């Protein structure tokens, strides 16, 4: 069977599975719709959280980014896993004890203020929409490359599937489809990794193969060979960092803290039965995520070596078929500057030739099976896996948007007298509308989506995280501190990012950055500002009322 038939088959099977689960797990109450009835076993919640969290960016883009960044890729590897330690230790158990439906719920109740609740709703919706647009785009790209339908049709198919299970099943439907999606995506990620690691080193486990000798008899390890190839072609050695230590520090911290402040991840901890389950499900989630995150850098290194070896001085006429496939859709571009018919792939320090080749980072994972000549079914598997990663994250985000509108804005703020039945209907309509808007952005992406997605972390770090942690660990924190803290934190971070990315992009380089911190890492500073403002404002305004101090005492103990 050809790769295309396999792709149709595997994608079709996985979609049938998701629809089947959606029909089986319809939501009957608002509790089902927002938090899956609060009855999800911790390991299942861990699986769902892992799929919720790992998006098209983790599955499709991350290994590629790392293979072009070398050691600096650690900002993603540590940044997107280390946040789970913060989540498990500082937030998850207390949120579960609080035990309501949304993140703005917590902010609104702890700070006894609908203003704080609405500020939190605005942050949550903004973060979720920027994120979800990127996922829909990912769905479109996978469809167009592997199934030969155009990007827009791909987005519409993806929307239809998400619409079906998110609107019908709410959190309950989403949770169980996410479990299936995790299984599909991790299988799709690991199989090619096993093959490639075995091909290079005779060791099938990529985490070990990554640090072993090559099996080509050269006696070099993978990383030695990669450093050698990189330097020969004028790139920096793979195992050296290019970014300043301070910047790596700030970016990693912003991604970690941002992870712990993302609303679609936080709400997952409301779905387990007990406080102890919230702690252990954070552990399960990180374990399942770590499986992919420790494999990714191995894929990066193998793919980089493979590409440098294959195309660095290859006659254009002899280019393998994957090269022309990806060239055809513009993700590889070759410009024969010296007209010698040979592809010269060179880095910034090369002295012999000018660089003639551009490789889009996204193809590292998608093209890897073709580059490594793996069987046709593996290619189909990658397509199914990429779709699973994008759809699972999209669904989690859509639920945050839906519950923010139906629960926080209507039920809790503007129309408290609606019945549960009406609230459920509104939640469904809101989810449906959100799917359509997300699909619109997937088809007509505003030029800045890709950049904004990365900044969603900075914004989450500078707004939610400090307010929630202080709310739990410092009883004296009051509503004035929270409101001013959130506004200055997110305001400072957004202003810095907008200035360097949209107002004066020509100044966006290390010598103009404040203290040498890039816009990607500024969320860390925004968070510190938030903390300072929150604490100072709280200390000069009246302490929170007695019942709020009692509320804090109560969430600190598990029963």
């Amino acid at each position, binding site marked *: 069977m050809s790769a295309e038939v396999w792709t149709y088959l595997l994608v079709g099977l996985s979609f049938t599975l998701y629809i089947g689960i959606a029909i089986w797990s319809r939501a009957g109450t608002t509790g089902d719709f927002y938090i899956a009835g609060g*009855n*999800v*076993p*911790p*390991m299942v919640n*861990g699986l769902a959280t892992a799929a919720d969290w790992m998006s098209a960016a983790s599955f499709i883009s991350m290994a590629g980014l*790392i293979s072009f960044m070398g*050691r600096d*890729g*650690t900002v993603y*590897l*540590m940044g997107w*896993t*280390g946040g*789970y*330690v913060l989540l*498990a*230790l*500082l937030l998850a*158990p207390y949120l579960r004890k609080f035990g309501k439906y949304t993140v703005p719920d917590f902010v609104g109740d702890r700070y006894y203020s609908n203003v704080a609740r609405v500020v939190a709703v605005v942050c949550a919706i903004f973060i979720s929409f920027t994120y979800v647009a990127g996922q829909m785009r990912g769905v479109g790209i996978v469809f167009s490359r592997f199934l030969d339908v155009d990007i827009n049709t791909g987005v519409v198919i993806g929307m239809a599937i998400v619409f079906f299970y998110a609107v019908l099943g709410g959190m309950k439907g989403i949770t169980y489809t996410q479990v299936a999606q995790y299984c599909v995506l991790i299988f799709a990620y690991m199989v090619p990794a096993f093959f490639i690691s075995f091909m290079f080193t005779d060791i099938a486990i990529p*985490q*070990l193969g*990554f*640090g*072993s000798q090559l099996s080509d008899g050269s006696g070099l*390890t*993978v*990383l*030695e060979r990669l450093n050698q190839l990189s330097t020969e072609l004028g790139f920096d050695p793979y*195992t050296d*960092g290019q970014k300043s*230590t301070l910047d*790596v*520090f700030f970016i*990693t*911290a912003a991604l*970690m803290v941002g992870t712990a402040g993302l609303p679609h991840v936080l709400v997952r901890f409301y779905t*387990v*039965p*007990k*406080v*102890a*389950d919230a*702690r*252990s*499900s*954070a*552990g*399960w989630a*990180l*374990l399942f995520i*770590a499986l992919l*995150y*420790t494999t990714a*850098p191995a894929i990066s290194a193998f793919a980089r070596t493979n590409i440098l070896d294959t195309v660095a001085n290859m006659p254009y006429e002899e280019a393998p078929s994957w090269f022309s496939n990806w060239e055809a859709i513009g993700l590889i571009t070759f410009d024969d500057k010296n007209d010698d018919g040979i592809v010269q792939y060179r880095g910034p320090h090369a002295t012999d030739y000018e660089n003639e080749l551009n490789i889009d980072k996204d193809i590292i994972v998608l093209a890897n099976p073709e580059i490594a000549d793996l069987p046709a079914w593996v290619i189909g598997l990658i397509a199914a896996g990429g779709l699973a990663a994008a759809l699972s994250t999209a669904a989690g985000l859509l639920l945050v948007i839906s519950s923010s509108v139906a629960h926080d804005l209507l039920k809790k703020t503007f129309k408290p007298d609606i019945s549960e039945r009406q609230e459920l209907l509104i939640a469904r309509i809101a989810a449906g509308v959100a799917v359509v808007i997300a699909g619109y952005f997937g088809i007509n992406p505003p030029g800045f989506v890709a950049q904004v997605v990365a900044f969603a972390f900075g914004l989450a770090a500078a707004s939610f995280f400090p307010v929630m942690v202080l709310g739990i660990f410092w009883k004296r924190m009051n509503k004035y501190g929270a409101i001013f803290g959130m506004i200055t934190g997110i305001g400072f971070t957004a202003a810095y990012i907008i200035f360097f990315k949209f107002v004066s992009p020509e100044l966006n380089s290390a010598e103009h950055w404040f203290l040498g911190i890039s816009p990607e890492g500024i969320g860390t500073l925004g968070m510190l500002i938030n903390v300072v403002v929150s604490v100072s404002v709280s200390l000069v305004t009246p302490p929170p009322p007695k019942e709020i101090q009692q509320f804090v*005492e109560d969430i*600190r*103990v*598990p*029963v």
Partner: protein
Amino acid sequence: MDQISRQLYWRKNLQYLAFLLTFWFVVSFGCGILFVDFLDQYKIGGFGLGFWFAQQGAIYFFVIQIVIYVILMNRLDRRFGLEDKSEQKKESNGGNP
């Protein structure tokens, strides 16, 4: 639960957090970023030790930290009689990683 044992429970919890978060900072920001070049002079398999922490090791330690936290807190809950014994949900309790 009386006020004094609440406070004891909370103080113990904060001690665990201080210990675990220090550990967290050392393996990630310490070994993987601040001291990465220094650690690279040592080898672990085909990796420089600093590079290994940055791209592999820190993540393993993160998982281990949460496991330790879960074990410590479950023990603390038991010692203070704070386990949630809601029976109908018993079957979902088998989930310590």
